[in-house]
């Protein structure tokens, strides 16, 4: 009889532990969802500001076209091409704002100061949001690879989380924090 009680007690403890682990995993998945939503918002914001600047007629026609093309592609990209399109937008931004005089020209234009502030904020926040997202992905992956999660299928049907890999290096002139 005592053996049975012990077995029952052990099962209850294991059950509670597994349910707690499933809760942990669930929380990690919702953290990834929130981080991904935040990353999407920042990427969209960046593409919008870039497109706005490209169509405002402040930059020279060649730079405008390069930036418009990249921003448009980033906004319209299918999920599987998203990382490449966003990386290309980063490269385009770096190419257009390669020198300080370009930034100065934008600043002089009417409304340029605000646009530039928005762009600076966007290129600063994209890497942030991406780091937070990938950090959540790493934590979830570490837990999902664990035996207890695999054997008891605690993750259910949730897809295996993927990191968002892209080139998010901001243009050097905009990243220089000392100038502000």
């Amino acid at each position, binding site marked *: 009889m005592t053996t049975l009680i012990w077995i029952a007690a052990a099962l*209850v403890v294991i059950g*509670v532990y597994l349910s*707690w682990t499933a*809760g*942990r995993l669930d*929380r*990690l998945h919702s*953290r990834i*969802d*929130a*981080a991904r*939503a*935040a990353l999407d*918002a*920042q990427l969209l914001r960046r593409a919008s500001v870039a497109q706005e600047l490209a169509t405002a007629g402040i930059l020279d026609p060649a730079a405008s076209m390069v930036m418009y093309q990249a921003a448009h592609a980033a906004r319209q990209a299918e999920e599987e091409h998203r990382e490449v399109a966003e990386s290309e937008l980063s490269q385009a931004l770096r190419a257009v704002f390669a020198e300080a005089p370009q930034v100065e020209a934008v600043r002089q234009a009417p409304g340029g100061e605000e646009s530039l502030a928005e762009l600076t*904020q966007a290129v*600063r*926040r994209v*890497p*942030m*949001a991406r*780091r*937070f997202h*990938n*950090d*959540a992905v*790493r*934590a979830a992956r*570490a*837990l999902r690879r664990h035996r207890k999660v695999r054997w008891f299928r605690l993750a259910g049907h949730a897809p295996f989380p993927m990191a968002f890999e892209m080139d998010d290096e901001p243009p050097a002139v905009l990243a220089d*924090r*000392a*100038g*502000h």
Partner: protein
Amino acid sequence: MRIGIVCPYSWDVPGGVQFHIRDLAEHLIRLGHEVSVLAPADDDTPLPPFVVSAGRAVPVPYNGSVARLNFGFLSAARVRRWLHDGDFDVIHIHEPTSPSLGLLTCWAAQGPIVATFHTSNPRSRAMIAAYPILQPALEKISARIAVSEYARRTLVEHLGGDAVVIPNGVDVDFFASAEPRPEWQGGTIGFIGRIDEPRKGLPVVMRALPRILAERPDTRLLVAGRGDEEEAVATLPPEMRGNVEFLGMVSDEEKARLLRSVDLYVAPNTGGESFGIILVEALSAGAPVLASDLDAFTQVLDQGAAGELFANEDADALADAALRLLADPARRAELSERGSRHVRRFDWSTVGADILAVYETVAAGAASVAADERTSLRARFGLARD
């Protein structure tokens, strides 16, 4: 935004993390945010209106020194009440790996949590042992901030994952506009830090001082910080002891005036620094800085462009560099000018904007902070009793 900040160390004891949290809270309040700071404090300590006491911290031996920590039922209950009353959009935990309030809050809360890692201590045995318990609490953190590239590297090595680097903030103009004091000017070297804490490096200066005085006998060393003054000068020949002036503990205003007055500020710290806020303050005041080449210091000084570096613990190198700088006013002016320009990135206007950007990034698309109900589920099974 409603922001809850958790300070792990006692509010009664002055320290870098406490000052950082105080300045951050005041900066955010000035910008119109609602801020509440949960900190350990004695019940009779006068607290600023934005600080909520989490009870008295208990001194316990931890990690080789006596730390004042908060744990146990009472603290956990206060954390829960604070979370419940505050209804925060985001909470910002400092030093979440120290076994104190930060860890308790991490354990008890859910929702957008930001954490700042200040120290870059090598992984302690306690942390290795507690890792399986620590991990579920730490994985609730939505965004990690490291105070320097060096702190970020240790964090990534020990806990995995990634963090954004946001340096500690300083009110640059407060230091830049302080009035120099004439009696602290003219051939003076400044040192600020605990006298009896060897890691702050005063012994290195004392070893270098005889050579500096041999060449420039009028040099004075001004030391601000608490500790045993007689013991500090014990290694110095008696006739040189008069060249060392102890100012004791100084107020923020006096500190700023001291930094504005000295010809050279030395930071001979031998280790244990993950950021070096004092260097940033010295640069803000326009003091030429000579610092040991710790990783964290090298980074703050922009690889030596904003201040000179000497080989750590090498008193001769310190003496050489100090003599060279004291003899060369043009170089000192150049360092001061470069430092003042470089230090702008550490001003609260920049640092505060970055921290707010982190808050907004994690709070977007997430529910507000709440007490974690799962803990009470476990409590029902009798597994947790908080």
